[in-house]
């Protein structure tokens, strides 16, 4: 089933099977990127640095030789400390970041909740943002029109759907983004830290929705620090550490090892989806 290795294995090009039993296959993925330490790089600062002969571009090795595959319908939890490469890995699977080396194959329609992607235009309404986000993701207007009521109903935003999104609270933002991601009937759902949006009731509801999706045939990759949620939802868990797979296997086992590593007590605070 779920197989993973963090050891470099010579890549052998296998002829692709006509039908696969996996939905996502990651082979020897390496991802390095350059970025600046500045939040907002400017030409002015670049000139000043040039004068001082400083360089602030850093190369970050976010993912180092990671291989695994996820069978159709399986739920894979990904855990790890901040900066372990979880989000980068998810973005690579989503096709947002190209691999530096290695290969990823994804079979199925993907829906992502990696950033609160809905609402990038603050001055247009929630409704229009849903349409824009959907069109960017490759859906047609007809598909979106069909899905729209379901999305609006799940998000429970009422009249706010027709208000500019800059009037939304952060909880409302999260609710709409979550609702869009899970209501698109995806074959594969990629979710990064999104089970803790909205109030307690909405959190409960989104957890139930996730359960429902898990029971249906959707394949789900879930990144979360909420270890309870991961334990309840995931079939298997990958623990990512410094860009490599530290451990993979059955959820409880991996989570226990991870907690021993973090040296945290068995407490609700650490486990809770906050």
């Amino acid at each position, binding site marked *: 089933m779920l197989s993973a290795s963090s050891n470099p294995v010579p890549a052998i090009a296998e002829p692709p099977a*006509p039908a696969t039993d996996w939905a996502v296959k990651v082979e020897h993925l390496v991802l390095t*990127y350059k970025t600046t330490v500045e939040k907002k790089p400017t*030409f002015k600062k670049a000139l000043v640095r040039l004068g001082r002969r400083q360089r602030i571009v850093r190369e970050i090795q976010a993912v180092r030789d990671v291989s695994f595959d996820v069978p159709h319908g399986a739920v894979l939890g990904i855990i790890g400390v901040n900066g372990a490469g979880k989000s980068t890995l998810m973005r690579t699977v989503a096709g*947002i970041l190209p691999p530096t080396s*290695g290969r*990823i194959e*994804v079979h199925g329609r993907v829906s992502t909740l990696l950033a609160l992607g809905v609402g990038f235009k603050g001055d247009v309404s929630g409704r229009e943002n849903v349409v824009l986000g959907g*069109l960017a993701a490759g859906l047609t207007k007809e598909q979106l029109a069909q899905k729209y009521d379901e999305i609006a109903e799940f998000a429970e935003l009422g009249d706010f759907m027709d208000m500019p999104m800059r009037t939304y609270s952060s909880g409302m933002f999260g609710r709409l983004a979550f609702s869009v991601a899970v209501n698109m009937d995806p074959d594969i759902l990629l979710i990064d830290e999104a089970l803790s949006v909205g109030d307690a009731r909405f959190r409960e509801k989104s957890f139930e929705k996730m359960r429902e999706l898990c029971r249906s045939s959707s394949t789900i990759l879930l990144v979360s620090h909420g270890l309870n949620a991961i334990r309840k939802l995931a079939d298997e868990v990958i623990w990512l550490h410094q860009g490599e797979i530290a451990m993979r296997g059955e959820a409880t086992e991996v989570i226990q090892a991870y907690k021993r590593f973090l040296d945290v007590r068995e407490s609700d605070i650490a486990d809770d989806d906050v």
Partner: protein
Amino acid sequence: MSTIAERRDAGEFASEIHVYEPHKVGLPPLGAYLTQLWGRREFAFELARSDLRSKHFNTALGQLWLVLNPLLLGLVYFALVLIIGRRGGSIAGLALLLLALFTFRLVSTSISQGARSVVGGGRLILNTAFPRTLLPLSSVLTCFMLFLPTLGVYAIVHVAAGLPVRPEILWGIPIVATMVVFAAGGAMFVAAVQVYFRDLTSFLRYMLRIWLYLSPILWTAAQVPERYKPLLYLNPLYPPLTALSEAVNFGVTPPARLLLLSVAWAVAAFVVGGLFFISREREFAVRL
């Protein structure tokens, strides 16, 4: 129903099977990229439309402003020309100025709005995989939609000035098209640069203003001393603006040389701007 092997060829931009591999020379497979871009064109249109709606240009007063604003700007520049030139103005002179000013603004606003498009689309870029060129191209669409009503203003002044109405005016369509293509190239270029240098928009404002003064808008090529004339060709907007004036203001078929230069500048800007943007676009997600 295509087989998996067939669909696999479509690579990373196919809808159901996605294969992500390192890019060769920093570029994704261009054929698949363009197919995907075309497939999602509705996004660019919808983004432009919602942009206009959010600025209330779908209301009567908004549309009035859409016409009044460029007209007032034109009158300000016209007054400036009269004062500096110390000469009497004519309606024909105003018509010449308005046409050049409106089309220049089509290019300059496309570029300045395009510059903000990628940084402004941050959330979407971090969440969704789609051809990022849609963002600057949508800005160009927005500016084109804002440009169209100004043609009505020009038409009124054109008729009032008694300028000829001849079929040669139709040359204006391909000339404006070259300017839109040029603007799209420019918008893509600055949109990518803006990711690396966020203060570009502040510089850009001044550069576009200088460009306006260096273009044949407040002056005509005939006023330029002979020895400086070759310098005019360094300005990519000189050929299309001059050709446009010949065709639309005077109803004359523009010289082929100017038309060819307009096309050449447009193609060059589009290819360079587009390739630069596409080669950088996968980095946007880690730079925003």
